[in-house]
């Protein structure tokens, strides 16, 4: 019986090595201008 279902998520620890290119959108540019987070942004780096 499966008591825990783990969703597939980006490996944040791994992104220490493959992240940081900076091409993603600056959060405020989209629709917010007041109370942004970053979680709803998309990664531009398809690797």
């Amino acid at each position, binding site marked *: 019986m499966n008591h825990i279902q783990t969703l597939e998520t980006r490996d944040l620890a791994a992104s220490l090595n493959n992240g940081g290119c900076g091409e993603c959108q600056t959060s405020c540019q989209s629709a917010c201008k007041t109370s942004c*987070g970053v979680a709803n942004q998309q990664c531009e780096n398809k690797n």
Partner: protein
Amino acid sequence: MIHQYKMNGYNIVVDVYSGSVHAVDELAYDIIALFENHSADEIVAEMAKAHPETPESEVREVIGAVQGLKDAGKLFAPDIYADHAFDFKNRSTVVKALCLHVAHTCNLNCEYCFAAQGKFHGQAALMSFETGKRALDFLIENSGTRRNLEVDFFGGEPLMNWDVCKRLIQYARSIEKEKGKNFRFTLTTNGMNIDDDVIEFANKECHNVVLSLDGRKEIHDAKRVTASGKGSYDTIVPKFQKLVQARGGKGYYMRGTFTRENLDFTNDIFHMADLGFTELSMEPVVCAETEPYALRKEDLPVLFDQYELLAKDMLRREKEGHPITFYHYMLDLTGGPCVYKRISGCGSGTEYMAVTPTGELYPCHQFVGDPAYKMGDIWNGVTNTALRDEFKLCNAYARPDCKDCWARLYCSGGCAANAYHATGSIKGIYEYGCELFRKRMECAIMMQVAHQCDPALAAYANHAKGATGCDGCSACAD
């Protein structure tokens, strides 16, 4: 650090530092709550009381599964980013986004305007083409090797200076190939001056448009009025509909502001959906606490319910085949931002700055007009480098109040302007905003869990592992 919560029939566990999300049954939920500070035997004893029908072997099996997840770095993962966060001072920052205040004036007189009805407490002004051109050159010159450069046309009301906007876009297009850049333009507008020319040009050139609409007519017209006090709803809604219909699937957001006068803001979101708009954003008003329409602490329970109601209704719409997007609930758990972005935040004062009509640089639109926060200008660049350093260091790890917050890597420390206005320091936090953010994040994550666990939402599930629909796990309530 983990965060456990129950919402919409799901038991959800978020592992902060790995970014993992788990949907669990009642037994696993209770075991996880005890796991860090109790031995296996102690947990078994507790579960014998809480889940008397469950055999000990099964309890130990789940304890083992939790340990397995911990060993795999997906639960109780340690914070390995703290040292990296403080490298931020020494990293080189480039400028990759500008908010161009092409107009410090406005053709509306919105009561709650953060910019004092468009003029930012200063003189009315329009940005000249020469100033805008220099701003774009400044951006390119300081963008390093970044290819994607973002420019948004803001104000005041940018359509009051539309010809300059168009000429600036044309200028950027004429040089972007040669400079190895890709410009992405956003236009934010109150809609009053939208005409066929705006529709055609903006739909061709603007990656995104942000259309200010508060929702129901009586709500919108209570705040978003002309100088003579007339509501703007009847004028702008048909224009917005025409623009969006002609957009051909290109991105846009309806962007509303809610106040104490419409705590039931989901009704405004649903109204916008009824008008045919599917890409929606709704923000709490930013204003002095003393305003009668300011949101208050006692409103929080109502707002929390509204956010949950919205998430549940969005799932219903998805099941029925007519989904809507809500900006804050967009969450791609597999393709979202890397940890650098998660920590570094909105980029204000560093990679993102606002430019006034006279070419002055500020950390963002919310700081414009505050002399203490002037960073420099587009001819001399950033001269207040101490200020830039302050913003450089301002991230999820720089704020003491963020230390124990489970949402810190989703929020990246929040809005510096809100923190400054609430506490006098950009390193503070705007607590009210934090409360709303955490609730929104719980709702967004719950929706992702629902996509994965609800067979009726199989179309939205992540298919990477080949799992579609229900796999028989008992993580859902029914």
